[in-house]
């Protein structure tokens, strides 16, 4: 291939600039690995395995934070999955184009609403009902991840060929059977949607910190709860010594958890897209 010297220079510039996003992801991985492993050296396993995270008492048990993160996201998913899938099915199978655009727009607005705004709404409407609690955290998270799930599941369902659904309908079966066939065909895309919604829930700090109560004891539904990410945003700035190390370990843990789930989710989606 014939290429002039200035053109080669331009491609080099693109190469250097284009490496930046990958360098950023590599750098944050190195950052978490190095700080996380150093923390493992500074804190004993006994401390980290404790049942409480109470930094003022020198207790750095990670179990309450991990359980808080998992419990709030799983509870949010149990609300988000039925609502999100039912909406996506309705929009795909039964709504006319105008209604679909209207509902889609509303869902997209909710999806794009900043976490501080959702958190404020939760503080005003949810906390008075259920207190600063795991339940409040789960409800606020559900409000954040349901639109994500709805949009992604809807996109997956619209990939299913219309002729297939026509053929099923021609058999004279009811709407529920058609919906079942649609779900079965879009199942990988739906699973991808659920995992991506889950990563959004696992990583949310701002909205949850406003309503969860943030006490690092083992979670109960109507008791205050702390998660890995809420603890980071509320404590990191003032933490020193082993407290800071333990927080780095928490950051590495939540990143590893989400990294695993999101790579898996994307792979499922890609597999669903390729014929």
């Amino acid at each position: 291939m014939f290429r002039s010297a200035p053109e080669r220079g331009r491609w080099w510039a693109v190469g250097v600039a284009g490496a930046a996003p990958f360098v950023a992801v590599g750098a944050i991985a190195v950052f978490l690995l190095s700080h996380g492993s150093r923390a493992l050296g500074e804190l004993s396993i006994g401390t980290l395995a404790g049942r409480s995270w109470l930094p003022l008492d020198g207790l750095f048990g990670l179990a309450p934070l991990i359980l808080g993160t998992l419990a709030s996201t799983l509870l949010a998913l149990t609300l988000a999955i039925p609502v999100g899938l039912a909406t996506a099915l309705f929009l795909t199978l039964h709504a006319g184009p105008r209604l679909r655009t209207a509902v889609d727009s509303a869902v997209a607005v909710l999806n794009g609403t900043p976490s501080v705004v959702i958190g404020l709404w939760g503080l005003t409407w949810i906390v008075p009902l259920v207190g600063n609690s795991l339940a409040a955290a789960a409800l606020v998270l559900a409000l954040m991840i349901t639109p994500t799930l709805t949009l992604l599941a809807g996109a997956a369902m619209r990939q299913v060929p219309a002729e297939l659904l026509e053929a099923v309908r021609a058999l004279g079966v009811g709407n529920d059977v058609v919906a079942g066939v649609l779900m079965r065909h879009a199942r990988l895309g739906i699973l991808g949607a659920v995992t991506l919604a889950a990563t959004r829930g696992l990583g949310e700090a701002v909205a949850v910190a406003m309503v969860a109560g943030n006490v690092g004891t083992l979670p109960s539904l109507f008791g205050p709860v702390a998660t890995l990410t809420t603890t980071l945003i509320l404590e990191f700035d003032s933490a020193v010594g082993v407290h800071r190390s333990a927080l780095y370990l928490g950051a590495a843990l939540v990143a590893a958890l989400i990294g695993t789930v999101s790579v898996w989710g994307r792979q499922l989606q890609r597999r669903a897209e390729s014929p």
Partner: protein
Amino acid sequence: MIRWLGMLASLLLVGLVLWLGGDLAVRGAGGFYRGYLLDAPADLGRAGGIGPLLLNTALIVSLSVALATLVSLAAAVLYTQRLPVQWVRRALHAMLDVGVGMPRIVWGLFGGVFFGGVLGFGFSVITGVLTLSCLLAPILATGFIGGLQGVDPELRSQCEALGVGRWTALWTQVIPAARPALVASIALATGRGFGDAAALFFTAGIATELPTSLLDPAATLAVFIFNLLTTVPGGQTSAYSAAAVLFAISLLVQVGIAATGRREALAR
């Protein structure tokens, strides 16, 4: 059965959006007055306007989106035009997936420690911009790659057949053909930037004044609201007014995304 449940669920979501918007409008209206969008906040944010915060937000978000767009477009061009090796592409895409999923607060810690501490920029506009760019770059690169891959591959071979160089073909044919998808990704990233509080809290800081240089701290609107709600007693009332403005901005961004006609493709 499913049909009625689906209709109910759709109604629920639409109702929630109306509830959220209505609640913000009603409660936020109490703090509005002529000049609210221009005045500086007073009494730790419990009174006054949000003028400096709007400017800070515009400054930090526009610089971050510009920087992230530049490097992400380069990354997407490399990925789609110059990387024929399958396993390298897979590994790089997995890195982007990890970056997209990385919680904002973890980007915030990283930015605060690395740009703020190691590089010595402290709590500042520049620390915030670099951190937010890191957060947005994987999102943008993923969107740009999708956009460039959506361009008919024939286009490139046609250019080659006509003796048009790769570089010229890229800038005069491929990128213009992908423009709607690229613009939609940028709009999406802009929305994320406006709404971000977690990544900027530890990096750009919580100062409510206008910065005099890029090394001064500057709170964005979202960080201001978060700080009002978590550290300022009695800040909830004025937080509502600021949140109503932030919600209006996110609505505008959504209208922009819808106008590109690419909302469907972005849902992946």
